[in-house]
């Protein structure tokens, strides 16, 4: 590092200029700090309870690079263990999902029950009296909490509760879960892909209304009209950028959301089914909330790496393997017990845009990989990324970049070891004692 961490982000709220040093996308030392200060100090999404419906149901996956088993125990509770034998460290679970009574390490055949306890080991009599099985249960992340089925873990024992952490973002999570009027579950069929790009580029991209008209012209200007959806009115009022008809909101703690209104395939293809759902939602939630769920789209970031997108009912999380490579996993959230026909239409709505074979995501993958290649030019003007759009406006819209600045402000505080309250909006810095 040639500069101090304080200089990585220039946040000039008086002049309305915001820029980020491109070293944050390339420097391995920054990634090391992120592992400790960002991914080590936040709540991270691990799984949804619907993925493990019965006692013994489990999924195993990496969260922030660490192998975890998320399993339903005999009492119906959710437990999370590190997937590493307490004997010599081997994985005790080699499948990504399934149902088990116990987890058997194939190396020396130590076995662990659904509570993580060391239930059996061959030749137990060969150990001294000081050897205590109770000390050798599978370890768990220091904190595990759920919010309405969403299971999060934190590696910071002292972190605030998950509900406190979600804070003002919670009402948007609720909108994301209530949209079917019944319980929401994760559908089978996950997307597992990657980008040769820094993970923070995907945070920005997931919240970027400005790029929709240019990067995604083939979707909004070609695909939707091709299947009979009239986008001309929305495109006329927005200069071709769907997100311009919407707003951006900083939700504090680095959480942030953009709200847009734009036609999407499901509205046309499942008119009758959606009308029925609207009636149910109106009864339960009233007109305003129902419209927010049925007519608006939200791209929501739960800091630092969980993205929920309501137009496509997407839950996406990702983690850096290196400064220049990110692994991405995404799932579809669906209402429980919907008809196969509606479920297929929801799936097709999602994958028409999002995912490695859709008409949106591949162009984002190409674009972000292009940014990463461009960073090799780091020099002069090429040394900074500009994120100033709309900073002078009292109420930034969804094609401005407040939502990215909100992420960056929290990121910048944590990178410097500042875990106090961060003013993430475009307002002036917090006055002393205001927190």
């Amino acid at each position: 590092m040639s500069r101090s961490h304080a200089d990585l982000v220039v946040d000039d709220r008086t002049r309305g200029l915001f820029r980020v040093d491109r070293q944050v996308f390339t420097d391995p030392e920054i990634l090391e700090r992120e592992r400790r200060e960002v991914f080590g100090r936040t709540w991270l999404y691990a799984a949804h309870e619907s993925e493990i419906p019965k006692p013994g149901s489990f999924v195993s996956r990496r969260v922030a690079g660490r192998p975890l088993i998320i399993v339903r125990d005999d009492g119906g509770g959710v437990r999370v263990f590190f997937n590493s034998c307490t004997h010599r460290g081997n994985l005790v679970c080699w499948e990504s999902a399934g149902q088990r009574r116990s987890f058997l390490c194939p190396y020396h055949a130590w076995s662990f029950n659904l509570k993580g306890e060391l239930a059996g080991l061959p030749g137990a009599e060969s150990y001294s009296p000081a050897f205590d099985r109770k000390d050798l249960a599978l370890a768990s992340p220091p904190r595990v909490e759920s919010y309405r089925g969403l299971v999060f873990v934190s590696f910071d024992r002292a972190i605030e509760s998950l509900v406190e952490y979600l804070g003002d973002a919670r009402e948007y999570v609720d909108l994301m879960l209530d949209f079917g009027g019944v319980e929401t579950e994760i559908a089978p069929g996950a997307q597992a892909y990657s980008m040769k790009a820094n993970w923070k580029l995907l945070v920005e991209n997931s919240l970027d209304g400005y790029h929709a008209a240019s990067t995604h012209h083939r979707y909004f200007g070609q695909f939707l009209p091709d299947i009979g959806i009239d986008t001309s009115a929305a495109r006329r009022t927005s200069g071709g950028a769907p997100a311009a008809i919407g707003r951006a909101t900083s939700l504090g703690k680095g959480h942030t959301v953009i709200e847009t209104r734009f036609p999407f395939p499901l509205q046309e293809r499942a008119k009758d089914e959606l009308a029925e759902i609207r009636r149910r939602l109106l009864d339960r939630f009233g007109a305003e909330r129902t419209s927010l769920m049925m007519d608006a789209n939200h791209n929501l970031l739960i800091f630092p790496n969980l993205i929920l997108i309501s137009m496509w009912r997407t839950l996406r999380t990702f983690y850096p393997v290196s400064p220049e490579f990110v692994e991405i996993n995404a799932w579809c959230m669906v209402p429980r017990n919907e008809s196969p026909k509606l479920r297929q239409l929801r799936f097709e709505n999602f994958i028409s845009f999002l995912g490695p074979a859709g008409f949106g995501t591949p162009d984002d993958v190409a674009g972000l990989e292009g940014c990463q290649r461009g960073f090799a030019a780091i020099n002069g003007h090429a040394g900074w990324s500009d994120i100033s759009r709309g900073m002078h406006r009292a109420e930034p819209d969804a094609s401005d970049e407040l939502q990215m600045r909100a992420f960056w402000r929290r990121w910048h505080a944590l990178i410097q070891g500042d875990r106090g309250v961060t003013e993430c909006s475009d307002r002036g810095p917090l006055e002393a004692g205001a927190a």
Partner: protein
Amino acid sequence: MPEITRHAVEEFLFHEAALLDEWRLEEWFALVAKDGRYLVPSLDAPDAEPWEALSLISEDHAQLGSRVRQLLGKSAWAENPRSRTRRLVTNVRVLEQSGDEARVTANFAVWRFQMEATDVYVGRYVHQLVRGPSSLLFRERKAVLDLEALRPHGKLSFIL
């Protein structure tokens, strides 16, 4: 009705592979029946139907037609510049015959080169073919990938 022979299926699939590798996508699209569908299941649910699990691709004729037009247009950035592809199609078998239709399978390996990256897509085709006026046609064209994740591929932006 004469049966649809393995030889005829091979001729058809080899011709199709050449059209795709040469980006002759309009000619290729003419091989898809009007009620034809194009499917690529999720990597972790390879045998699921499109209403049972999220797919990678689940398209009817109109959506697939749009995919073709997008790929031949100027704003599909992921394929601009276009990938070079080379596909090997082998192990062709006719699984079932009935009337004008046959269910066939084949193995594929597609090499893709673009922006200094080399990606390999390996899997099997399971197609429902129907006899058309001048050639066989796809009623269902399904490509089932053997990959565990699209890493480091990142995307599937050409027709598999």
